[in-house]
């Protein structure tokens, strides 16, 4: 985790949303963990019409002007990384 | 029934500001209700809930067919009622709560209603 360029904090949650480990800006940030868990439960209800075959999402990014949160589910754990946007602004173009 | 209650409670926790879900018959008599402590007492009474029946009858006079849903917003609350006659689903929520999200719950409740509808229809 520490090797991700621009990383300024991370959270590792289990399936129930309990914090397993954390560092940097997100150290013991249970409030953010709660919000992200809420977001993930909402996501499971997103429109099946627009997304055929019930395929889920793999990655969720929440992009602010200077930094972003990247959220991934892997191995029954939820990884949340807070990182600075790359200088060229490529991360912001959608 | 217990299972139904569990599912409804889950829905209640999904939407912020949703205080209460009631499934009643057309007279407003609750078949099942789940509520948080913030639910206003008056609004969960049959006398209030049964006005929905009158309202949709009036609404049908507009010539657009039978009304499906009724959304009433008040200064502190909003009431969303869905026509599933012989049953009525009522949601009581804060006025700031997400109306669209509550309407979206309909599709989760629909499959639960099948058995209830049969039960209510039998007794009438």
């Amino acid at each position, binding site marked *: 985790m520490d090797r991700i360029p621009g990383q300024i904090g991370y959270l590792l949650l289990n399936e129930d949303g309990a914090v397993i480990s954390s560092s940097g800006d997100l150290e013991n940030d249970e409030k*953010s963990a709660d*919000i*992200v868990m*809420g*977001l993930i439960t*909402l*996501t499971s*209800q*997103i*429109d099946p*019409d*627009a*997304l055929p075959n019930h*395929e*889920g*999402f*793999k*990655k*969720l*990014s*929440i*992009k*602010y*002007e200077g930094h*972003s*949160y990247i959220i991934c589910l892997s191995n029954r754990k939820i990884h949340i990384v807070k990182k600075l946007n790359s200088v060229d602004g490529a991360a*912001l173009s*959608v | 029934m217990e299972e139904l209650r569990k599912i409804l409670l889950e829905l209640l926790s999904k*939407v*912020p500001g949703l205080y209460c879900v009631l499934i009643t018959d057309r007279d407003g008599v609750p078949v099942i209700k789940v509520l948080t402590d913030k639910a206003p007492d008056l609004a969960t009474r049959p006398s209030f809930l049964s006005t929905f029946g009158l309202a949709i009858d009036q609404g049908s006079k507009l010539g657009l067919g039978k009304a499906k849903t009724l959304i009433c917003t008040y200064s502190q609350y909003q009431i969303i009622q869905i026509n599933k006659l012989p049953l009525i689903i009522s949601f009581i929520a804060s006025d700031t709560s*997400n*109306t*669209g*999200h*509550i*309407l*979206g719950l309909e*599709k989760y409740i629909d499959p639960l209603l099948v058995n209830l509808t049969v039960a209510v229809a039998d007794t009438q």
Partner: protein
Amino acid sequence: MEKHLDRVMDDVLSNPGVTSCVFVDHQGLCLGARGKASTECAGIIGAIADQAAKLEPQHKSPIIVFENDTRACIIQRNGTITGAIFKNI
């Protein structure tokens, strides 16, 4: 009245890869939808934007992007209106 929104939605849809778009008001009610998205998902989209905005309330509302290998869903709130775009990538 909604001509302007209709035009914006057609504009959005004309971008390459965009399959559908939905616009939602502050109550989570659908203002308009184009493409394959149903109007029913409006509430969820509003709720997602609300929830994500809680993360850093002091900042401007963020852009929320859901991705898998082939598709992306982009959501952003602007004032009272929330827009969502579904696209193939």
